[in-house]
């Protein structure tokens, strides 16, 4: 394995680490704000289930990233192209982090890979069917999370509306949040770590280290899950320091419903091989919980920015990766 391949694998794992770091708040916000777990234990809980996800999920999402975005039969995904794709995704994430746009690392990765491959070999290398699946679920996954969050909240309200022991019910959902937070962290680890596996698989195939029909090697699966788990652990420590005022106060029942709805959405999309944004999915589920009361409970400014992120992310990362690959081509 040459140094270029190792460099790209290292960059992909760094991308995975930052994904865990960035998304740690999604996994632990509700359990911490409802004081079910202390921040320290919540972070460890989320990181453990991020890692354990490799025992639950297959590698369908990784296969979609590696083989359904760019046609593997065209042998376009060389080390340079994957490197340019990763730089496009990371560059877009940094730019939007600066601008405060809640963009998805997953969509940036797809846009980056596509942009670099098109710069190298033209539009014909893109897999229309795979891109269509990813594009449709950019919109559908938050809407699925929203509908499930809303329906679950309504069912819970209906089941417990006549309960005279509100305190006992609340205590039950506080415990339930341990399970829902674990399930969401499993879904997050399952879907997001597989995107990194897909990148590494693509570069291993492109560099001739694996055959085009190869599956994801076990060491790649473990490395991707370790990277995202460590990222969550590190991101969580940062959050521990700044906690308190930044997290909105939530009722245990709402946290339970939102996490469960997002987890179900992530379990479904992961098993169907669809890379989705975990951030957008949990955002949709939280909006669903808020909508069970009234629409003014929803922070529409945040929802509007998510829509902008949908529209801009893939073209933005595509453009950066296209330029980087073109520069690599000129230098080569």
């Amino acid at each position, binding site marked *: 394995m040459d140094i270029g391949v190792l460099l790209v694998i290292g960059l992909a794992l760094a991308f995975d680490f930052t994904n865990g770091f960035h998304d740690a708040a999604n996994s632990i916000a509700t359990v911490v704000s409802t004081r079910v777990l202390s921040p320290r234990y919540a972070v460890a809980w989320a990181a453990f289930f991020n890692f354990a996800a490799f025992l639950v999920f297959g590698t369908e999402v990784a296969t979609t990233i590696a083989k359904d975005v760019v046609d593997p039969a065209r042998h376009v995904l060389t080390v340079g192209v994957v490197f340019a794709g990763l730089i496009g995704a990371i560059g877009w994430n940094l730019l939007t982090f600066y601008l405060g746009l809640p963009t998805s690392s997953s969509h940036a990765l797809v846009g980056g890979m596509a942009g670099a491959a098109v710069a190298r070999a033209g539009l014909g290398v893109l897999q229309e069917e795979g891109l*269509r*699946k990813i594009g*449709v679920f950019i919109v559908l996954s938050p*809407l699925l999370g929203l*509908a499930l969050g*809303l329906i679950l909240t309504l069912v819970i309200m209906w089941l417990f509306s006549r309960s005279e022991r509100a305190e006992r019910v609340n205590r039950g959902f506080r415990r339930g949040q341990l399970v829902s937070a674990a399930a969401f962290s499993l879904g997050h680890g399952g879907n997001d770590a597989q995107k990194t596996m897909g990148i590494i698989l693509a570069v291993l195939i492109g560099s001739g280290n694996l055959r085009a029909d190869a599956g994801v090697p076990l060491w790649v699966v473990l490395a991707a899950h370790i990277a995202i788990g460590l990222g969550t652990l590190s991101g969580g420590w940062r959050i521990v320091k700044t906690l308190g005022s930044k997290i909105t106060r939530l009722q245990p029942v709402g946290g339970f419903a939102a996490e469960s709805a997002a987890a179900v959405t992530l379990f479904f999309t992961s098993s169907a091989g669809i890379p989705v944004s975990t951030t957008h999915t949990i955002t949709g589920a939280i909006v669903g919980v808020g909508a069970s009361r*009234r*629409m003014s409970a929803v922070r529409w400014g945040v929802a509007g920015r998510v829509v902008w992120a949908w529209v801009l992310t893939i073209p933005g990362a595509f453009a950066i990766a296209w330029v980087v690959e073109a520069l690599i081509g000129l230098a080569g």
Partner: protein
Amino acid sequence: MNDRRLWFFLVAAMACALLIPAAPADLRWVPKMLAVVYVVLAALVALELVGRRGEDEAEANGGGDSRA
């Protein structure tokens, strides 16, 4: 009908319906199912609004009678 949920659910249902032909054939059931779910949610909100309006009117009439 000034509850924003009604319009939001209708727009969501329309977005899901528009995505049906674009979805891969084996996953087309997802936008179909979601479109139906959002239409049902919009209908429930509309029913709630109609019911609430009826209650408000009855209350207003009752209040007027008691004052008379």
